[in-house]
Protein backbone atom coordinates (compact mmCIF):
# COMPACT_ATOMS: atom_id res chain seq x y z
CA UNK A 1 0.00 0.00 0.00
CA UNK A 2 1.83 3.15 -1.13
CA UNK A 3 1.69 6.15 1.17
CA UNK A 4 0.48 9.38 -0.39
CA UNK A 5 2.79 12.33 0.15
CA UNK A 6 0.63 15.46 0.35
CA UNK A 7 1.49 18.55 -1.63
CA UNK A 8 3.67 20.69 0.54
CA UNK A 9 3.20 24.13 -1.08
CA UNK A 10 6.69 25.19 -0.13
CA UNK A 11 6.19 28.53 -1.91
CA UNK A 12 3.94 29.70 0.93
CA UNK A 13 6.86 29.53 3.33
CA UNK A 14 9.39 31.32 1.11
CA UNK A 15 10.17 34.09 3.64
CA UNK A 16 10.83 31.53 6.37
CA UNK A 17 13.00 29.44 4.05
CA UNK A 18 14.95 32.49 2.84
CA UNK A 19 15.87 33.37 6.42
CA UNK A 20 16.69 29.81 7.47
CA UNK A 21 18.77 29.00 4.39
CA UNK A 22 20.71 32.25 4.89
CA UNK A 23 21.36 31.17 8.46
CA UNK A 24 22.85 27.86 7.29
CA UNK A 25 24.93 29.66 4.66
CA UNK A 26 26.22 32.12 7.28
CA UNK A 27 27.13 29.23 9.59
CA UNK A 28 28.95 27.50 6.75
CA UNK A 29 30.91 30.59 5.69
CA UNK A 30 31.78 31.29 9.31
CA UNK A 31 34.33 28.50 8.96
CA UNK A 32 36.13 30.14 6.07
CA UNK A 33 35.61 33.91 6.27
CA UNK A 34 37.92 36.00 8.42
CA UNK A 35 36.10 39.33 8.38
CA UNK A 36 32.89 38.37 10.17
CA UNK A 37 31.17 41.66 9.34
CA UNK A 38 30.62 40.29 5.83
CA UNK A 39 28.37 37.66 7.41
CA UNK A 40 26.33 40.42 9.03
CA UNK A 41 25.76 42.04 5.66
CA UNK A 42 24.98 38.63 4.15
CA UNK A 43 22.30 38.22 6.82
CA UNK A 44 20.81 41.58 5.87
CA UNK A 45 20.67 40.35 2.27
CA UNK A 46 18.78 37.23 3.36
CA UNK A 47 16.33 39.38 5.31
CA UNK A 48 15.84 41.57 2.25
CA UNK A 49 14.93 38.50 0.18
CA UNK A 50 12.49 37.45 2.89
CA UNK A 51 10.94 40.94 2.94
CA UNK A 52 10.51 41.03 -0.83
CA UNK A 53 8.95 37.56 -0.91
CA UNK A 54 6.60 38.51 1.94
CA UNK A 55 5.41 41.59 0.05
CA UNK A 56 4.97 39.54 -3.14
CA UNK A 57 2.97 36.88 -1.27
CA UNK A 58 0.66 39.61 0.04
CA UNK A 59 -0.72 39.90 -3.49
CA UNK A 60 -1.42 36.16 -3.75
CA UNK A 61 -4.46 34.59 -2.15
CA UNK A 62 -3.46 32.72 1.02
CA UNK A 63 -2.73 29.03 0.63
CA UNK A 64 -2.24 26.47 3.37
CA UNK A 65 1.07 24.65 3.36
CA UNK A 66 2.33 21.34 4.75
CA UNK A 67 -1.11 19.78 5.15
CA UNK A 68 -2.71 22.79 6.84
CA UNK A 69 0.06 23.08 9.34
CA UNK A 70 0.99 26.61 8.27
CA UNK A 71 -0.49 29.33 6.11
CA UNK A 72 0.73 32.46 4.38
CA UNK A 73 -2.25 34.73 5.03
CA UNK A 74 -2.12 38.50 5.40
CA UNK A 75 -1.74 38.18 9.17
CA UNK A 76 1.38 36.01 8.89
CA UNK A 77 2.93 38.19 6.17
CA UNK A 78 2.47 41.50 8.03
CA UNK A 79 4.03 39.82 11.07
CA UNK A 80 6.90 38.66 8.87
CA UNK A 81 7.59 42.29 8.04
CA UNK A 82 7.64 43.19 11.75
CA UNK A 83 10.14 40.40 12.46
CA UNK A 84 12.30 41.35 9.49
CA UNK A 85 12.43 45.01 10.56
CA UNK A 86 13.33 43.95 14.10
CA UNK A 87 16.08 41.58 12.95
CA UNK A 88 17.54 44.02 10.42
CA UNK A 89 17.72 46.93 12.88
CA UNK A 90 19.27 44.64 15.51
CA UNK A 91 21.88 43.34 13.07
CA UNK A 92 22.87 46.92 12.27
CA UNK A 93 23.31 47.64 16.00
CA UNK A 94 25.26 44.38 16.39
CA UNK A 95 27.71 45.25 13.61
CA UNK A 96 28.91 48.20 15.70
CA UNK A 97 28.30 46.82 19.19
CA UNK A 98 30.00 43.44 18.73
CA UNK A 99 32.94 44.98 16.89
CA UNK A 100 33.66 47.26 19.86
CA UNK A 101 33.81 44.25 22.15
CA UNK A 102 35.71 41.81 19.93
CA UNK A 103 32.66 39.55 19.87
CA UNK A 104 32.22 39.64 16.10
CA UNK A 105 31.34 36.00 15.33
CA UNK A 106 29.45 34.40 12.48
CA UNK A 107 27.41 32.25 14.85
CA UNK A 108 25.82 35.38 16.26
CA UNK A 109 24.23 36.27 12.95
CA UNK A 110 23.27 32.66 12.22
CA UNK A 111 21.53 32.37 15.59
CA UNK A 112 19.77 35.68 15.11
CA UNK A 113 18.46 34.50 11.76
CA UNK A 114 17.36 31.12 13.15
CA UNK A 115 15.51 32.98 15.86
CA UNK A 116 13.82 35.20 13.28
CA UNK A 117 12.84 32.07 11.33
CA UNK A 118 11.28 30.63 14.46
CA UNK A 119 9.26 33.81 14.93
CA UNK A 120 8.00 33.66 11.34
CA UNK A 121 6.98 30.05 11.89
CA UNK A 122 4.99 31.08 14.96
CA UNK A 123 3.19 33.73 12.95
CA UNK A 124 2.33 31.34 10.14
CA UNK A 125 1.51 28.28 12.24
CA UNK A 126 -2.00 26.85 12.07
CA UNK A 127 -1.16 23.74 14.05
CA UNK A 128 0.07 23.55 17.62
CA UNK A 129 2.97 21.31 16.53
CA UNK A 130 4.28 24.12 14.33
CA UNK A 131 3.62 26.73 17.03
CA UNK A 132 5.75 24.63 19.36
CA UNK A 133 8.53 24.16 16.80
CA UNK A 134 8.60 27.90 16.06
CA UNK A 135 8.58 28.73 19.76
CA UNK A 136 11.55 26.46 20.43
CA UNK A 137 13.57 27.50 17.36
CA UNK A 138 13.15 31.11 18.46
CA UNK A 139 13.81 30.53 22.15
CA UNK A 140 16.77 28.18 21.96
CA UNK A 141 18.61 30.58 19.66
CA UNK A 142 17.77 33.43 22.06
CA UNK A 143 19.13 31.52 25.09
CA UNK A 144 22.50 31.26 23.37
CA UNK A 145 22.42 34.85 22.11
CA UNK A 146 21.71 36.15 25.63
CA UNK A 147 24.85 34.36 26.84
CA UNK A 148 26.92 35.50 23.88
CA UNK A 149 29.24 37.89 25.72
CA UNK A 150 31.59 35.24 27.10
CA UNK A 151 33.81 37.72 28.89
CA UNK A 152 31.02 38.98 31.09
CA UNK A 153 29.70 36.87 33.95
CA UNK A 154 26.33 38.63 33.74
CA UNK A 155 25.77 37.55 30.16
CA UNK A 156 26.19 33.84 30.86
CA UNK A 157 23.98 34.22 33.90
CA UNK A 158 21.30 35.94 31.83
CA UNK A 159 21.42 33.08 29.31
CA UNK A 160 21.18 30.45 32.04
CA UNK A 161 18.24 32.15 33.79
CA UNK A 162 16.44 32.67 30.52
CA UNK A 163 17.08 29.06 29.60
CA UNK A 164 15.82 27.50 32.83
CA UNK A 165 12.69 29.64 33.06
CA UNK A 166 12.06 29.37 29.30
CA UNK A 167 12.29 25.58 29.32
CA UNK A 168 10.07 25.51 32.41
CA UNK A 169 7.45 27.61 30.60
CA UNK A 170 7.77 25.44 27.48
CA UNK A 171 6.95 22.39 29.57
CA UNK A 172 3.76 24.07 30.82
CA UNK A 173 2.88 25.07 27.26
CA UNK A 174 3.39 21.48 26.12
CA UNK A 175 1.23 20.07 28.88
CA UNK A 176 -1.45 22.52 27.79
CA UNK A 177 -1.16 21.29 24.20
CA UNK A 178 -1.38 17.68 25.36
CA UNK A 179 -4.57 18.34 27.32
CA UNK A 180 -6.20 20.34 24.52
CA UNK A 181 -5.30 17.49 22.16
CA UNK A 182 -6.84 14.99 24.52
CA UNK A 183 -10.04 16.99 24.87
CA UNK A 184 -10.54 17.97 21.23
CA UNK A 185 -8.78 15.13 19.41
CA UNK A 186 -6.67 17.40 17.26
CA UNK A 187 -3.82 19.87 17.37
CA UNK A 188 -4.98 21.80 14.31
CA UNK A 189 -6.18 25.26 15.26
CA UNK A 190 -9.29 25.29 13.06
CA UNK A 191 -10.13 21.69 14.00
CA UNK A 192 -10.03 22.75 17.64
CA UNK A 193 -12.28 25.68 16.70
CA UNK A 194 -14.70 23.31 14.94
CA UNK A 195 -14.84 21.12 18.00
CA UNK A 196 -16.15 24.07 19.98
CA UNK A 197 -18.70 25.16 17.38
CA UNK A 198 -20.05 21.92 15.90
CA UNK A 199 -18.19 19.10 17.64
CA UNK A 200 -20.27 19.42 20.78
CA UNK A 201 -17.43 20.68 22.92
CA UNK A 202 -17.50 23.68 25.19
CA UNK A 203 -15.22 25.43 27.60
CA UNK A 204 -16.81 23.82 30.61
CA UNK A 205 -14.93 20.65 29.68
CA UNK A 206 -12.35 20.50 32.50
CA UNK A 207 -9.54 19.04 30.38
CA UNK A 208 -9.92 21.70 27.68
CA UNK A 209 -10.19 24.38 30.37
CA UNK A 210 -6.97 23.37 32.13
CA UNK A 211 -5.26 22.92 28.75
CA UNK A 212 -6.16 26.40 27.55
CA UNK A 213 -5.07 27.90 30.87
CA UNK A 214 -1.67 26.22 30.59
CA UNK A 215 -1.31 27.46 27.00
CA UNK A 216 -2.01 30.99 28.23
CA UNK A 217 0.65 30.58 30.93
CA UNK A 218 3.18 29.54 28.28
CA UNK A 219 2.41 32.54 26.10
CA UNK A 220 2.24 34.95 29.05
CA UNK A 221 5.80 33.92 29.84
CA UNK A 222 7.02 34.63 26.31
CA UNK A 223 5.37 38.05 26.11
CA UNK A 224 6.55 38.79 29.68
CA UNK A 225 3.13 39.43 31.21
CA UNK A 226 2.77 39.83 34.99
CA UNK A 227 2.91 37.46 36.96
CA UNK A 228 5.23 35.58 34.58
CA UNK A 229 7.73 38.39 34.13
CA UNK A 230 10.44 37.65 36.75
CA UNK A 231 13.03 36.69 34.16
CA UNK A 232 12.75 39.87 32.11
CA UNK A 233 14.84 42.44 34.02
CA UNK A 234 17.77 40.11 34.69
CA UNK A 235 17.88 38.77 31.15
CA UNK A 236 17.52 42.19 29.54
CA UNK A 237 20.26 43.62 31.74
CA UNK A 238 22.74 40.78 31.32
CA UNK A 239 22.35 40.08 27.61
CA UNK A 240 24.38 42.06 25.07
CA UNK A 241 22.38 45.22 24.32
CA UNK A 242 21.97 44.34 20.64
CA UNK A 243 20.36 41.04 21.70
CA UNK A 244 18.15 42.79 24.25
CA UNK A 245 16.88 45.10 21.51
CA UNK A 246 16.10 42.11 19.32
CA UNK A 247 14.29 40.02 21.89
CA UNK A 248 12.42 42.87 23.54
CA UNK A 249 10.48 43.35 20.31
CA UNK A 250 10.87 40.07 18.37
CA UNK A 251 10.10 37.53 21.08
CA UNK A 252 7.18 39.62 22.32
CA UNK A 253 5.72 40.03 18.82
CA UNK A 254 6.10 36.30 18.13
CA UNK A 255 4.40 35.40 21.41
CA UNK A 256 1.50 37.70 20.54
CA UNK A 257 1.42 36.34 16.98
CA UNK A 258 0.69 32.79 18.07
CA UNK A 259 -1.48 33.80 21.04
CA UNK A 260 -3.77 36.00 18.91
CA UNK A 261 -4.18 33.36 16.20
CA UNK A 262 -4.95 30.72 18.82
CA UNK A 263 -7.54 32.93 20.52
CA UNK A 264 -9.12 34.08 17.24
CA UNK A 265 -9.14 30.84 15.24
CA UNK A 266 -9.48 28.13 17.89
CA UNK A 267 -11.24 29.82 20.74
CA UNK A 268 -12.97 32.50 18.66
CA UNK A 269 -16.44 31.08 19.27
CA UNK A 270 -15.73 30.10 22.82
CA UNK A 271 -13.97 33.38 23.56
CA UNK A 272 -16.75 34.45 25.86
CA UNK A 273 -16.98 37.21 28.41
CA UNK A 274 -15.31 35.06 31.08
CA UNK A 275 -12.20 34.71 29.01
CA UNK A 276 -12.23 38.34 28.03
CA UNK A 277 -12.30 39.23 31.71
CA UNK A 278 -9.34 36.90 32.35
CA UNK A 279 -7.24 38.43 29.55
CA UNK A 280 -8.33 41.95 30.57
CA UNK A 281 -7.22 41.24 34.14
CA UNK A 282 -3.86 40.04 32.80
CA UNK A 283 -3.58 43.28 30.79
CA UNK A 284 -4.35 45.50 33.81
CA UNK A 285 -1.92 43.68 36.13
CA UNK A 286 0.79 43.68 33.47
CA UNK A 287 0.49 47.39 32.66
CA UNK A 288 0.36 48.49 36.27
CA UNK A 289 3.00 46.09 37.56
CA UNK A 290 5.46 46.95 34.80
CA UNK A 291 5.03 50.69 35.19
CA UNK A 292 5.28 50.77 38.97
CA UNK A 293 8.39 48.59 39.00
CA UNK A 294 9.98 50.70 36.27
CA UNK A 295 9.68 53.81 38.46
CA UNK A 296 12.24 52.42 40.90
CA UNK A 297 14.93 51.41 38.40
CA UNK A 298 18.41 52.93 38.37
CA UNK A 299 19.71 51.01 35.36
CA UNK A 300 18.36 52.00 31.97
CA UNK A 301 18.30 48.44 30.62
CA UNK A 302 16.26 47.27 33.60
CA UNK A 303 14.02 50.31 33.24
CA UNK A 304 13.40 49.46 29.60
CA UNK A 305 12.79 45.84 30.61
CA UNK A 306 9.97 46.85 32.96
CA UNK A 307 8.71 49.31 30.37
CA UNK A 308 8.54 46.45 27.85
CA UNK A 309 6.41 44.54 30.38
CA UNK A 310 4.09 47.54 30.57
CA UNK A 311 3.90 47.66 26.76
CA UNK A 312 2.92 43.98 26.73
CA UNK A 313 0.02 45.08 28.91
CA UNK A 314 -1.05 47.82 26.47
CA UNK A 315 -0.89 45.34 23.58
CA UNK A 316 -3.01 42.85 25.56
CA UNK A 317 -5.70 45.55 25.71
CA UNK A 318 -5.98 45.21 21.93
CA UNK A 319 -6.29 41.42 22.23
CA UNK A 320 -9.18 41.53 24.73
CA UNK A 321 -12.03 42.57 22.34
CA UNK A 322 -11.31 39.57 20.06
CA UNK A 323 -12.18 41.59 16.95
CA UNK A 324 -10.20 41.90 13.73
CA UNK A 325 -9.91 45.65 14.41
CA UNK A 326 -8.24 44.84 17.70
CA UNK A 327 -5.83 42.45 15.97
CA UNK A 328 -4.87 45.08 13.41
CA UNK A 329 -4.35 47.63 16.18
CA UNK A 330 -2.04 45.13 17.88
CA UNK A 331 0.01 44.76 14.70
CA UNK A 332 0.20 48.55 14.27
CA UNK A 333 1.41 48.85 17.85
CA UNK A 334 4.03 46.12 17.41
CA UNK A 335 5.42 47.69 14.24
CA UNK A 336 5.65 51.12 15.87
CA UNK A 337 7.13 49.59 19.01
CA UNK A 338 9.81 47.87 16.91
CA UNK A 339 11.12 51.22 15.68
CA UNK A 340 10.94 53.25 18.88
CA UNK A 341 12.14 50.56 21.29
CA UNK A 342 15.03 49.36 19.14
CA UNK A 343 15.93 53.03 18.61
CA UNK A 344 16.10 53.52 22.39
CA UNK A 345 18.28 50.41 22.78
CA UNK A 346 20.53 51.66 19.96
CA UNK A 347 21.22 54.80 22.02
CA UNK A 348 21.95 52.60 25.06
CA UNK A 349 24.30 50.45 22.96
CA UNK A 350 26.21 53.50 21.74
CA UNK A 351 26.64 54.91 25.25
CA UNK A 352 27.74 51.66 26.90
CA UNK A 353 31.43 52.21 26.76
CA UNK A 354 34.05 49.60 26.52
CA UNK A 355 36.08 50.20 29.64
CA UNK A 356 33.51 50.32 32.40
CA UNK A 357 30.44 48.73 30.90
CA UNK A 358 27.57 50.41 32.63
CA UNK A 359 24.06 51.43 31.78
CA UNK A 360 23.15 53.41 34.88
CA UNK A 361 20.69 56.20 34.20
CA UNK A 362 22.90 58.72 36.05
CA UNK A 363 25.51 58.39 33.34
CA UNK A 364 23.09 60.07 30.96
CA UNK A 365 23.51 63.34 32.87
CA UNK A 366 24.69 66.14 30.66
CA UNK A 367 24.37 64.13 27.48
CA UNK A 368 22.57 66.96 25.71
CA UNK A 369 25.66 69.14 26.03
CA UNK A 370 28.05 66.43 24.87
CA UNK A 371 26.06 64.84 22.06
CA UNK A 372 23.05 67.00 21.20
CA UNK A 373 21.81 64.84 18.34
CA UNK A 374 22.03 61.58 20.28
CA UNK A 375 20.21 63.17 23.20
CA UNK A 376 17.54 64.53 20.86
CA UNK A 377 17.03 61.03 19.41
CA UNK A 378 16.67 59.56 22.90
CA UNK A 379 14.22 62.34 23.83
CA UNK A 380 12.13 61.47 20.80
CA UNK A 381 12.07 57.72 21.59
CA UNK A 382 11.16 58.38 25.24
CA UNK A 383 8.29 60.71 24.28
CA UNK A 384 7.07 58.19 21.70
CA UNK A 385 7.23 55.33 24.23
CA UNK A 386 5.20 57.46 26.64
CA UNK A 387 2.55 57.69 23.94
CA UNK A 388 2.47 61.45 23.32
CA UNK A 389 1.74 62.92 19.88
CA UNK A 390 3.10 63.51 17.31
CA UNK A 391 4.98 60.20 17.35
CA UNK A 392 4.06 56.67 16.32
CA UNK A 393 3.65 55.52 19.93
CA UNK A 394 0.65 57.81 20.27
CA UNK A 395 -1.22 56.27 17.35
CA UNK A 396 -0.40 52.74 18.53
CA UNK A 397 -1.97 53.41 21.91
CA UNK A 398 -4.90 55.27 20.34
CA UNK A 399 -5.84 52.36 18.06
CA UNK A 400 -5.43 49.74 20.78
CA UNK A 401 -7.53 51.69 23.28
CA UNK A 402 -10.14 52.52 20.62
CA UNK A 403 -10.58 48.80 19.94
CA UNK A 404 -11.30 48.30 23.65
CA UNK A 405 -13.80 51.19 23.72
CA UNK A 406 -15.63 49.84 20.68
CA UNK A 407 -16.00 46.50 22.45
CA UNK A 408 -17.71 48.26 25.38
CA UNK A 409 -14.68 47.97 27.60
CA UNK A 410 -14.02 51.66 28.15
CA UNK A 411 -12.77 51.04 31.68
CA UNK A 412 -9.84 49.11 30.21
CA UNK A 413 -8.91 52.07 28.02
CA UNK A 414 -9.13 54.36 31.06
CA UNK A 415 -6.72 52.12 33.00
CA UNK A 416 -4.40 52.21 29.97
CA UNK A 417 -4.41 56.01 29.82
CA UNK A 418 -3.73 56.31 33.55
CA UNK A 419 -0.83 53.90 33.13
CA UNK A 420 0.59 55.94 30.26
CA UNK A 421 0.58 58.94 32.58
CA UNK A 422 2.51 56.96 35.20
CA UNK A 423 5.02 55.86 32.58
CA UNK A 424 5.76 59.51 31.74
CA UNK A 425 7.57 59.81 35.10
CA UNK A 426 10.31 57.34 34.31
CA UNK A 427 10.61 58.03 30.60
CA UNK A 428 10.90 61.74 31.19
CA UNK A 429 13.29 61.05 34.07
CA UNK A 430 15.84 60.02 31.45
CA UNK A 431 15.14 63.26 29.57
CA UNK A 432 15.63 65.30 32.74
CA UNK A 433 18.99 63.60 33.28
CA UNK A 434 20.11 64.34 29.75
CA UNK A 435 19.00 67.95 29.54
CA UNK A 436 18.91 69.39 33.05
CA UNK A 437 21.65 67.69 35.04
CA UNK A 438 25.31 68.53 34.52
CA UNK A 439 27.67 65.68 33.72
CA UNK A 440 29.36 64.13 36.73
CA UNK A 441 32.60 65.92 37.48
CA UNK A 442 35.57 63.86 36.37
CA UNK A 443 38.35 63.29 38.84
CA UNK A 444 41.84 64.54 38.11
CA UNK A 445 43.65 62.54 35.48
CA UNK A 446 40.50 60.62 34.49
CA UNK A 447 39.75 61.05 30.84
CA UNK A 448 36.24 61.53 29.60
CA UNK A 449 35.40 58.42 27.60
CA UNK A 450 34.69 59.51 24.04
CA UNK A 451 31.37 58.48 22.57
CA UNK A 452 31.93 57.01 19.15
CA UNK A 453 29.20 56.59 16.61
CA UNK A 454 30.19 54.07 13.98
CA UNK A 455 28.41 53.55 10.68
CA UNK A 456 25.88 50.72 11.07
CA UNK A 457 24.37 51.78 14.39
CA UNK A 458 23.92 55.30 13.00
CA UNK A 459 21.77 53.81 10.24
CA UNK A 460 19.58 52.13 12.87
CA UNK A 461 19.23 55.41 14.76
CA UNK A 462 18.46 57.39 11.63
CA UNK A 463 15.87 54.88 10.38
CA UNK A 464 14.23 54.61 13.80
CA UNK A 465 14.03 58.40 14.21
CA UNK A 466 12.69 59.01 10.70
CA UNK A 467 10.05 56.27 10.86
CA UNK A 468 8.95 57.23 14.39
CA UNK A 469 8.42 60.83 13.27
CA UNK A 470 6.92 60.18 9.82
CA UNK A 471 4.45 57.56 11.06
CA UNK A 472 3.63 59.91 13.91
CA UNK A 473 2.61 62.67 11.54
CA UNK A 474 1.17 60.45 8.84
CA UNK A 475 0.16 56.97 10.11
CA UNK A 476 -1.97 56.08 7.08
CA UNK A 477 0.62 53.87 5.27
CA UNK A 478 1.02 51.62 8.30
CA UNK A 479 -2.75 51.57 8.87
CA UNK A 480 -3.18 50.46 5.26
CA UNK A 481 -0.53 47.77 5.69
CA UNK A 482 -2.03 46.35 8.88
CA UNK A 483 -5.50 46.35 7.30
CA UNK A 484 -4.14 43.61 5.01
CA UNK A 485 -3.68 41.43 8.06
CA UNK A 486 -6.65 39.09 7.92
CA UNK A 487 -6.85 35.42 8.80
CA UNK A 488 -6.95 33.17 5.73
Amino acid sequence: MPIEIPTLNIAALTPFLAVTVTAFVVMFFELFVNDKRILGYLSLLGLAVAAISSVMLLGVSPAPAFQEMAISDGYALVLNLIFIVTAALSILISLSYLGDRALQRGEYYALLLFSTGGMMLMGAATDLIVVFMGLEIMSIALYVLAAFNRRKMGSGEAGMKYFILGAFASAFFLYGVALVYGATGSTNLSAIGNWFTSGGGDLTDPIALVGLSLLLVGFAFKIAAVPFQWWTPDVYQGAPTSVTAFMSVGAKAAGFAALVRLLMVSFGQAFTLDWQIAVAALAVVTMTGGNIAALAQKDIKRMLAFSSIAHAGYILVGVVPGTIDGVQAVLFYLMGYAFMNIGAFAVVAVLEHRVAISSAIEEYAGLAARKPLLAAAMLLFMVSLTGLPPFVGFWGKLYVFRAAVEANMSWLAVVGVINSAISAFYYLGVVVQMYMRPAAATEDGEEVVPISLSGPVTITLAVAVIITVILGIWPTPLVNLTSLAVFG
Partner: protein
Amino acid sequence: MLEQVPVSHYLLLSAILFSIGAGGVLIRRNVIIVLMCIEMMMNAVNLTFITFSRYLDSATGQIFVFMIMAVAAVEVAVGLALLVELNRHKQSVNIDDFNALKG
Protein backbone atom coordinates in the same frame (compact mmCIF):
# COMPACT_ATOMS: atom_id res chain seq x y z
CA MET B 1 -4.21 -8.37 30.10
CA LEU B 2 -2.41 -5.06 30.61
CA GLU B 3 -4.73 -3.34 28.13
CA GLN B 4 -7.29 -3.13 30.88
CA VAL B 5 -5.36 -0.44 32.74
CA PRO B 6 -7.72 2.51 32.32
CA VAL B 7 -6.66 5.73 30.58
CA SER B 8 -7.13 7.75 33.75
CA HIS B 9 -4.29 5.85 35.45
CA TYR B 10 -1.82 6.91 32.76
CA LEU B 11 -3.05 10.48 32.91
CA LEU B 12 -2.77 10.50 36.68
CA LEU B 13 0.75 9.08 36.52
CA SER B 14 1.86 11.71 34.03
CA ALA B 15 0.25 14.47 36.09
CA ILE B 16 2.15 13.24 39.14
CA LEU B 17 5.42 13.05 37.21
CA PHE B 18 4.85 16.55 35.83
CA SER B 19 4.20 17.92 39.31
CA ILE B 20 7.29 16.25 40.75
CA GLY B 21 9.35 17.78 37.93
CA ALA B 22 7.83 21.23 38.39
CA GLY B 23 8.37 21.06 42.15
CA GLY B 24 11.96 20.01 41.57
CA VAL B 25 12.64 22.99 39.30
CA LEU B 26 11.35 25.34 41.98
CA ILE B 27 13.02 23.70 44.98
CA ARG B 28 16.36 22.23 43.88
CA ARG B 29 19.37 24.54 43.67
CA ASN B 30 21.73 22.36 41.61
CA VAL B 31 21.46 23.37 37.96
CA ILE B 32 22.07 19.84 36.70
CA ILE B 33 19.22 18.50 38.82
CA VAL B 34 17.02 21.36 37.61
CA LEU B 35 17.81 20.26 34.04
CA MET B 36 16.83 16.71 34.95
CA CYS B 37 13.55 17.96 36.44
CA ILE B 38 12.72 19.87 33.25
CA GLU B 39 13.45 16.69 31.30
CA MET B 40 11.07 14.86 33.62
CA MET B 41 8.31 17.39 32.92
CA MET B 42 8.81 16.95 29.18
CA ASN B 43 8.64 13.17 29.49
CA ALA B 44 5.48 13.41 31.58
CA VAL B 45 3.97 15.37 28.70
CA ASN B 46 5.17 12.66 26.30
CA LEU B 47 3.32 10.05 28.34
CA THR B 48 0.15 12.17 28.20
CA PHE B 49 0.47 12.47 24.43
CA ILE B 50 1.00 8.76 23.94
CA THR B 51 -1.97 7.96 26.16
CA PHE B 52 -4.29 10.28 24.27
CA SER B 53 -2.88 9.08 20.95
CA ARG B 54 -3.79 5.49 21.85
CA TYR B 55 -7.13 6.50 23.33
CA LEU B 56 -8.18 8.67 20.38
CA ASP B 57 -6.58 6.31 17.86
CA SER B 58 -4.82 9.22 16.13
CA ALA B 59 -1.16 9.41 15.12
CA THR B 60 -0.76 13.15 15.78
CA GLY B 61 0.16 12.59 19.40
CA GLN B 62 3.01 10.26 18.50
CA ILE B 63 4.40 12.70 15.93
CA PHE B 64 4.28 15.38 18.62
CA VAL B 65 6.29 13.10 20.91
CA PHE B 66 9.03 12.84 18.28
CA MET B 67 9.21 16.61 18.12
CA ILE B 68 9.31 16.92 21.90
CA MET B 69 12.12 14.36 22.13
CA ALA B 70 14.17 16.26 19.56
CA VAL B 71 13.58 19.60 21.27
CA ALA B 72 14.34 18.14 24.70
CA ALA B 73 17.67 16.82 23.40
CA VAL B 74 18.56 20.22 21.97
CA GLU B 75 17.56 21.93 25.20
CA VAL B 76 19.78 19.62 27.23
CA ALA B 77 22.66 20.31 24.84
CA VAL B 78 22.23 24.08 25.13
CA GLY B 79 21.71 23.91 28.89
CA LEU B 80 24.89 21.87 29.44
CA ALA B 81 26.86 24.18 27.15
CA LEU B 82 25.68 27.23 29.09
CA LEU B 83 26.57 25.52 32.35
CA VAL B 84 30.09 24.62 31.17
CA GLU B 85 30.51 28.25 30.11
CA LEU B 86 29.27 29.63 33.45
CA ASN B 87 31.48 27.15 35.26
CA ARG B 88 34.55 28.85 33.81
CA HIS B 89 33.57 32.09 35.56
CA LYS B 90 32.46 30.54 38.80
CA GLN B 91 33.37 27.04 39.98
CA SER B 92 29.83 26.14 40.96
CA VAL B 93 26.67 24.52 39.73
CA ASN B 94 24.49 26.10 42.41
CA ILE B 95 21.80 28.43 41.10
CA ASP B 96 22.15 30.81 44.08
CA ASP B 97 25.77 31.52 43.16
CA PHE B 98 24.72 33.06 39.87
CA ASN B 99 23.73 36.43 41.27
CA ALA B 100 25.64 39.09 39.34
CA LEU B 101 22.42 40.69 38.11
CA LYS B 102 20.32 42.62 40.58
CA GLY B 103 17.98 45.57 40.51
